[in-house]
């Protein structure tokens, strides 16, 4: 499984002139996004476990406490509900908290604050208490983490009205989407694919591409035979699969959703109507996963364009496996190609 991604499509308007581009990791782009947000808006505050002096266990907040002080980048006590709960209060006072949950599974203690307050506060107060909170959650597997360190929890979030759910797959998007998330007046669950933290692409930290609005998917590879619909850590895997598929004579389109909520029905359906076939790919368990929603809505909207049912390639419906077995769980190129092969290419 590839752990680096080369970006095929750059999105958003690049600055005038040609800013210097050099290899950067997704981690660096995220760090730059936080730094730029802290610089531009004094209301932005970063908080979480180990985000200050240490710079985060993944170093995404590296250097921020040194530059902006403890009050802008704060090491909190070890209590996720407390972190998110106090962030709610900070947002009520007009701040714009950016919260880090150290790992996917360690966001669960904050679930009540998230569902009952973060997601609902604007609605229950008829718009008087918006929640411009960004919750950064490193998620997903493929890094050999011990149990509770590799969960893909997006399905819990996308089913919670009031939240936006965003996940980058490229270095440029890591920056652009995180800035757009922090700028959003609504809460955003910003899911960072752990195994792409060290993926690299040419990128310009001085004039990084911005993303205008959340909710737009990107076609990462154009194709005609079928559409792979995916997001986050599975995007590079799908691109690899698409390359491999050319050997079988399939020309696959790859759509990177970038945002699960809002969902870009337009881009996705346009692609599927063109190709007539689709496979949804993600790491999290399939049953009740994001792929279920995607398959269902694509089918509702494109039924008569479909030559075959929309198929899903997802993690098994099991607790995330131990590192030594995770390769059997994660959707890989072969499993994706198997699904493509099942798209009823002959008449039946």
């Amino acid at each position, binding site marked *: 499984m590839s752990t680096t991604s080369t970006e095929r499509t750059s999105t958003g308007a690049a600055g005038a002139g040609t800013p210097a581009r050099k290899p950067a990791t997704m981690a660096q782009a995220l760090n730059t996004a936080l730094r730029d947000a802290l610089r531009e808006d004094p209301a932005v505050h970063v908080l979480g476990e180990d985000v200050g002096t240490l710079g985060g266990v993944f170093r995404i907040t590296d250097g921020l406490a040194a530059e902006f002080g403890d009050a802008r980048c704060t090491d909190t006590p070890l*209590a996720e509900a407390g972190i998110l709960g*106090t962030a709610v209060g900070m947002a*009520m006072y007009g*701040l714009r908290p950016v919260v880090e949950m150290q790992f996917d599974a360690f966001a669960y203690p904050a679930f009540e604050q998230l569902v009952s307050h973060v997601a609902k506060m604007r609605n229950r*107060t*008829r718009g008087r208490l918006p929640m411009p909170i960004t919750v950064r959650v490193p998620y997903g597997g493929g890094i050999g983490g011990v149990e509770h360190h590799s969960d893909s929890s997006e399905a819990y979030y996308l089913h919670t*009205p009031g939240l936006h759910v965003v996940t980058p797959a490229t270095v440029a998007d890591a920056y652009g989407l995180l800035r757009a998330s922090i700028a959003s007046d609504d809460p955003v669950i910003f899911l960072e694919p752990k195994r792409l933290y060290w993926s690299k692409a040419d990128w310009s930290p001085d004039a990084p591409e911005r993303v205008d609005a959340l909710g737009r998917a990107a076609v990462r590879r154009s194709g005609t035979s079928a559409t792979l619909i995916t997001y986050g850590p599975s995007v590079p895997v799908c691109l690899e699969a698409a390359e491999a598929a050319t050997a079988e004579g399939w020309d696959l389109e790859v759509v990177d959703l970038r945002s699960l909520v809002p969902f870009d029905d337009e881009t996705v359906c346009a692609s599927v109507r063109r190709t007539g076939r689709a496979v949804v790919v993600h790491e999290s368990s399939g049953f009740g996963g994001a792929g279920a929603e995607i398959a269902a809505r694509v089918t509702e909207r494109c039924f008569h364009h479909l030559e075959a049912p929309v198929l899903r390639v997802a993690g098994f419906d099991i607790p995330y496996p131990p590192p030594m077995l995770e390769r059997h769980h994660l959707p890989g190129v072969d499993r994706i190609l198997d699904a493509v092969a099942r798209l009823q290419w002959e008449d039946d």
Partner: protein
Amino acid sequence: MTVLEQPGTTGHTPPPAWQPRTDPAPLLPDAEPFRLLGTPDSDGLDAGLLRTLYRHLVRGRRYNRQATALTKQGRLAVYPSSTGQEACEVAAALALEERDWLFPSYRDTLAVVARGVDPVEALTLLRGDWHTGYDPVEHRVAPLSTPLATQLPHAVGLAHAARLRGDDVVALAMVGDGGTSEGDFHEALNFAAVWQAPVVFLVQNNGFAISVPLDKQTAAPSLAHKAVGYGMPGRLVDGNDAAAVHSVLSDAVSRARSGGGPTLVEAVTYRIDAHTNADDATRYRTDEQVEQWLRHDPVALVERELRGRGLLDDDAAKAVADDAEAMAADLRERMNADPVLDPMDLFAHVYAEPTPQLREQAEQLRAELDAEAETDGEHGREAGAR
């Protein structure tokens, strides 16, 4: 970092000197709940304050009664009465300055009203109308919190944010004895103490969490004793003594405002009514217990003080009662009018801008409502989904 190779060769000295990080003694609550009314100390109490407390207490008592009546008339979905706890409710609101924030729990409608929120708007939630009726920012009153103790970290975050911005704003957060068992209580108090946030936590220990008595809730000497574990002072007060609660809260608020950090206040009180109008309290407690507490009534305590000091005569008492009656009459009348809700508001505040998905769903509802209206027009029957 060094992994020790030869333990035997390491010297043997005492560990880096240990010392408590704060002196625990001043954090511990007094042995008895603090009282003012009926004690020699009550002489020093300001007459104006006593009169104000009295007026709010009488209104509060009347409000509880009126709201409970409204549930019987089907005008309120449910009402958790705070009868017997009015002293806490009123003192909490009056201890704050206008710029301060109040974080009420679901039972604290009286505190919300005493803070200046319109009595009808304070009932919007319990009426089945929109979740929060008042403007939290205008009044600096957070929404009534149904999930217990979840509002406490909000109070801490807000107070912390205010302090970071250089504003001398204090947050006062209310919670019940039952709510102290929740993890959110713990995390909020810990954050507050570590951040030295200007927050006051008021626990109304009314003896019960629905049917569960305090001794199934905690084994602590008192709830105020929990404070020491966070490094903040714990204060114990007679929750039926409005002057005492007001005094303790005011001290805690000034302390917080001047950078002294948070305080935990336990007010010992009693819930005279059932948990809500829907509850049957005889299933879990005796009338004797209730009678005992009725003899230590918060309204009567202040009234007696005022009368004893010649600050209240029958005429003045009647004026206060009339004022409360007028409030109740107004409440009754305005609650009798059916609120008009726009179903399309379901989609208005989910996000700053509705998502494309919500726009689609809003269109669907709009079409349904139009069809309904048309059918109603044709057949003259009640609008309503089957």
